[in-house]
């Protein structure tokens, strides 16, 4: 399944920009609204092809989401594009009340999610968006894990009436899926089967879960890897089915573990099938400036950290059995 190396592949934001430009050619009702970040978010690729359907609002993110709401009321399918930290923090109220409360048909990419933002530091790193977004009624939330997944999520997002938030990471990812891959709300995918522990990944962290599974294999531990691009709704059935087989779980997210993806999995398990579990992600911390790979090491979000968490989860499972 896993294909070419990450370094040779375009970043996910590039895939997003290319896909949006392709979709613009098929769907004439798509409008892209930008707040002076189009070369960073890569919606510049849409702008170049369809300047007449590209609206610049300037550095005014509150207005960005209000204008998008108005465009949706006029019958367009707007994509207001900015950094995730400005969706989930700066303009959280406009996004929630003007778009999600009336369930308007607006598709919102959150760019520069989590740790990799170049060296921008705390102001531009979004760690809270998963936690915040999944509490908002009417909203669907996704974090694609590779290029094919990004294309599939965007296709489904367009076809889904109502508001959608999806994460766009500034990072290159190796292929998890073939080009005919599809995405469905509330459905996860087993990427690798295993019997000792389930590694649940979302977004870019599924790739790290796969790498952790390879490390675990060397220690004779069989890890199942499940990719969950659909964070809300979440695939409760698959979560329960998988841990019924493995008996313990580790979650991995490029976001805060507080109320985030791991918490969503924990909610399902606690209410239905409690098992030992560990969460990998940002641990209640603002994100520092620094080299991206150094930051992943600093915040304990490397494959080695996931493997270590798996060991701990398995140990907890075994001690429960004694």
């Amino acid at each position, binding site marked *: 399944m896993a294909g070419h190396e990450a370094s040779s592949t375009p970043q996910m934001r590039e895939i997003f920009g290319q896909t949006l430009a392709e979709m613009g050619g098929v769907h004439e009702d798509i409008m892209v609204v930008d707040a002076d970040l189009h070369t960073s978010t890569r919606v510049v690729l849409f702008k170049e092809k369809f300047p007449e359907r590209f609206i610049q609002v300037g550095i005014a993110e509150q*207005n960005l*989401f*209000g*204008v998008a709401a108005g465009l*949706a009321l*006029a019958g367009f399918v707007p994509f207001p594009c900015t950094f995730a930290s400005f969706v989930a923090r700066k303009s959280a109220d*406009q996004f929630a009340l*003007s778009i999600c409360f*009336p369930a308007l048909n607006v598709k919102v990419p959150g760019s520069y999610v989590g740790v990799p933002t170049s060296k921008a530091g705390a102001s531009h790193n979004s760690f809270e968006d998963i936690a915040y977004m999944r509490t908002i009624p009417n909203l669907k939330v996704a974090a694609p894990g590779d290029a094919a997944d990004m294309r599939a999520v965007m296709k489904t997002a367009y076809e889904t009436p109502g508001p959608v938030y999806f994460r766009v990471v500034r990072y290159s990812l190796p292929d998890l899926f073939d080009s005919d891959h599809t995405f469905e709300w509330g459905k996860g995918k087993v990427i690798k089967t295993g019997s000792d522990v389930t590694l649940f990944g979302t977004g870019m962290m599924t790739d790290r879960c796969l790498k952790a599974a390879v490390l675990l294999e060397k220690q004779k531990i069989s890890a199942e890897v499940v990719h969950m691009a659909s964070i809300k709704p979440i695939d409760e059935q698959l979560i329960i089915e998988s841990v019924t087989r493995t008996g313990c779980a580790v979650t991995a997210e490029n976001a805060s573990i507080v109320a985030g993806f791991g918490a969503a999995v924990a909610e399902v398990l606690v209410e239905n099938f409690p098992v030992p579990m560990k969460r990998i992600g940002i641990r209640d911390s603002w994100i520092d400036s620094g080299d991206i790979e150094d930051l992943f090491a600093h915040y304990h979000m490397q494959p080695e950290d996931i493997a270590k968490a798996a060991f701990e989860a398995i140990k907890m499972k075994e001690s429960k059995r004694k």
Partner: protein
Amino acid sequence: MQLSKEQIVQLEDFAYQIRRLSLEMITCGQWGHPGGSLSMADLMSVLYFKVLRVNPQKPDWEERDRFVLSKAHASPALYATLAIMGFFPIEDIYQYCQIGGIEGHTDMRRTKGLESSGGSLGMGLSIAAGLAYGLRKKELFKSSVYCMIGDGESNEGNIWEAAMFASHYHLDNLITIMDYNKVMAKGFVWDEMGIEPLRDKWQAFGWEVLEIDGHDIQAIYDSLYKARWIQRCGKPILIIAHTVKGRGIEDTEFNYKWHTQHPTPQEADQMLRELSVRYGKPAAGYSRLEGR
């Protein structure tokens, strides 16, 4: 454009009914904002009964005008207007603030005739501007977007982001009315956070500005006529409507305490009697006063 005496009498009567029903629903729901509902009643009357191209039988008619209530806490005046117009039965207003009934602020998914949802101040003008841009893009040139904003609401930075956007894109199909009732939730605007010089500020942002007495039916109509037919010159238009917060009842006029306070049924009975007498009608109190 001169309205006939009969037209003015009729529009004043609609304004009276809007004020009455606003107080009825706030009293019945035991929640709401009487001051800002009463101040904009005359504006709502002229807008909906003389200017807006809307049809209660065809609420989704593509070529209709759109009205966005940015100061959505004054929703009773809008609900009353929509009910009188026939978007829903008048009886429904007594479901105000009841679970599953009519939302305290505005929920477009719940009440027919609403064009937006709101309640958090500063947001409506952005929505209206996006809508105006979208309608122009769709070449729906007969449709205009009307947006009602508050004076206190203009403290919000979001209002000025939207103002900048609307003038940058020459949205002259966007007509904004400021209900300048001088009073916000906790005091007079100039004490809480001054917004003057308003005309200069909006003109500096690239807007065409008109200024009127917001309780003068003829003046309201003139300004809306001008905004639509005469002064469209590639600029969004602001009508500063000078109004009296709580207009219609002596105790509520320019009294910040009635921004949010809801009257008891007995108080509402007295208020509605006073209102009817002021309009030269036979004294009529609160319709749901117990024992009546």
